[in-house]
């Protein structure tokens, strides 16, 4: 058993006991910081494992994204919820954030399809109460939809685990990746049920109905964790099943669901009235693209990894900025936010940068990622999907940036004090990182 991975999972889990400690806020920051240090160690040493845990080139990117967004979200949350002081709710919130991060890291490293399913379901259990720190009826309703729809969907992916166990008599991921089982109707059923089950968690159309509600009603740092890393963890689970069960018809099915999800989000985006909800639909679009990238493989897989990491930071920055705006304007409506440039200059910069990043504008990593995914798709002969995706991306780009421009540039407002320094710093640094990611990938030798 590898101690680094054990510590990576155990540190947030143990630090969640900070609920009982006086220094619970410091403990949460320390836990997230240690997780980032361990993730960097895993990345730099290019750790490869396939025993009790599975760590390879793919999971390393996910791990670094999870730990980074976890740290940023903890720091942001401490400022965002400062009015809650040292209340029981605040303690519970930070403890659950630790458990949430631990369950995601467990899912990313576990080497068994059954336990992977358990890890994904554990992320639902640990994250549900994070939505309702303020106990407002609307938030409770959103949390309810999240827990019921996602759990009901995930049960179907358990069917996939059952079918795989029947077919392969083994659930060890690394073993099944090497001893590729021959394609059969059972592998097709396993892939199809995994697509529906994990697809619910990813937010693929038409199983996405919980996603806009949960993202718009969750506290902003939780929206950032949901959008930036939780949904990619579910994509990881689906991709592992796909690796074992892939066939041409399954590839087509996965691409179909990816394209339909992108189309749907492009249709929904122009009519959005609430900015957090708008970013939630933008997440659906990006998840569709990442799924397609993983499915195609080759340069599209590289593109999907770049998109995944950039999107994690970009969408994180978008939600952190949204949180700062909500704190100042006390409204989630796009039409209620005017003159942001004058009223909150730093937040307006992070909002613009992040909205450009998540909609794939050059020179952000998302542009490079999307370009590689579309190239991969084109080279594999999927011409119609390429056309539909390009059209959808243009609509999404126009819609999100039009709404954001209206918020930033329309009207005149008197400058007021921004949110706390830590909140502004987190939003700005997350959006700045999105600009650096292509260079980091270059330095790491991926591109």
């Amino acid at each position, binding site marked *: 058993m590898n101690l680094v991975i054990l510590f990576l999972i155990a540190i947030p889990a143990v630090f969640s006991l900070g609920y009982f400690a006086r220094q619970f806020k410091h403990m949460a920051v320390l836990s997230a910081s240690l997780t980032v240090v361990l993730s960097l160690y895993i990345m730099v040493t290019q750790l490869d494992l396939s025993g009790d845990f599975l760590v390879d080139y793919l999971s390393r990117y996910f791990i670094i994204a999870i730990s980074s967004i976890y740290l940023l979200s903890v720091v942001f949350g401490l400022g965002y919820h400062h009015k809650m002081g040292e209340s029981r709710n605040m303690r519970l919130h930070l403890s659950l954030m630790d458990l949430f991060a631990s369950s995601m890291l467990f899912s990313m490293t576990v080497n068994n399809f059954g336990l992977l399913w358990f890890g994904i379901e*554990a992320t639902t259990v640990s994250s549900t109460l994070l939505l309702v720190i303020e106990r407002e009826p*609307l938030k409770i309703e959103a949390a309810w939809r999240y827990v019921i729809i996602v759990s*009901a969907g995930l049960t179907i992916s358990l069917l996939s*685990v059952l079918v795989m166990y029947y077919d392969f008599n083994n659930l060890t991921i690394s073993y099944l990746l090497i001893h590729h089982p021959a394609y059969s109707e059972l592998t097709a059923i396993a892939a199809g049920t995994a697509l529906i089950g994990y697809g619910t968690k990813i937010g693929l159309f038409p199983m996405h109905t919980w996603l806009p509600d949960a993202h718009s009603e969750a506290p902003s740092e939780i929206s950032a964790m949901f959008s930036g890393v939780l949904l990619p963890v579910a994509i990881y689970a689906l991709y592992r099943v796909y690796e074992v069960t892939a066939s041409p018809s399954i590839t087509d099915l996965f691409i179909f669901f990816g394209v339909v999800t992108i189309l749907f989000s492009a249709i929904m985006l122009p009519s959005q009235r609430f900015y957090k909800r708008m970013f939630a639909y933008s997440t659906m679009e990006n998840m569709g693209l990442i799924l397609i990238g993983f499915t195609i493989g080759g340069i599209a897989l590289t593109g999907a990894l770049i998109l995944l990491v950039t999107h994690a930071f970009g969408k994180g920055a978008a939600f952190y900025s949204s949180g700062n705006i909500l704190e100042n304007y006390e409204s989630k409506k796009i039409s209620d936010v005017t003159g942001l440039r004058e009223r909150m200059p730093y937040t307006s910069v992070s909002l613009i940068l992040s909205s450009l990043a998540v909609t794939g504008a050059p020179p952000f990593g998302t542009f490079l990622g999307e370009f590689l995914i579309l190239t991969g798709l084109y080279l594999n002969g999927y011409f119609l999907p390429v056309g539909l995706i390009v059209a959808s991306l243009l609509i999404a780009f126009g819609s999100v940036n039009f709404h954001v421009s209206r918020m930033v540039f329309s009207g005149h407002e008197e400058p007021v004090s921004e949110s706390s320094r830590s909140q502004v710093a987190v939003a700005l640094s997350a959006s700045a990182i999105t600009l650096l990611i292509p260079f980091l990938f270059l330095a790491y030798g991926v591109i």
Partner: protein
Amino acid sequence: MIYSEIEGILGALILGSTLVVQTRSYIRPMINTVVTQSVILAVTAIIIGITTSAPDLIVLAGLVVVLRGILVRHFLSLRLPKTRMFVKETSHGVTSVTMYSVIALILSFLVYRYTFFPIIQAPLGAIGFSMIVQGLLLITTRRNSFAHFIGYVEEENGIIFMSLTIVPLPFLIEISVLLDVLALIIVGTGLVTENVEHPRVEELMG
């Protein structure tokens, strides 16, 4: 031979309880029915455990009774409003729900017959599969929090029944699934407020 017939009878009882849940309007009897279903599921696990000499299935049966039969009932009952003796689901008519569930039952049998059965050759698996479908139907057709929970428990019971009749999953994973449902029920009951119905909300549309 006699054991397989007993399994068949228990499967039929479980399926019957699934259909009964669909037509229930009052929540407390609905909870009792799903608890009964869990107990029958446990008996099935014991019988399969005896016939296949698998002691872990007997342990699993005990856990099903404790976790789903006793604890799930306890947590759900705790949240039932005390001011009202009978909590009634108002969002459906019995006739239409019976019709939907029968149609869903036939369709799920057909899907199982033409997808799983030609490869797996386990006829009782159809019961588990149709339970999953019925659980999903319960969640989608009702607006009551308790009905949603019960639909979810039914789905998970369906998975366990399928697993028992097709290929028992490793014990560690079965335990994980059971604990997971319990954790979800505990977390979910924290979200059940005085208003257990889920109406349309303008801010959560579009």
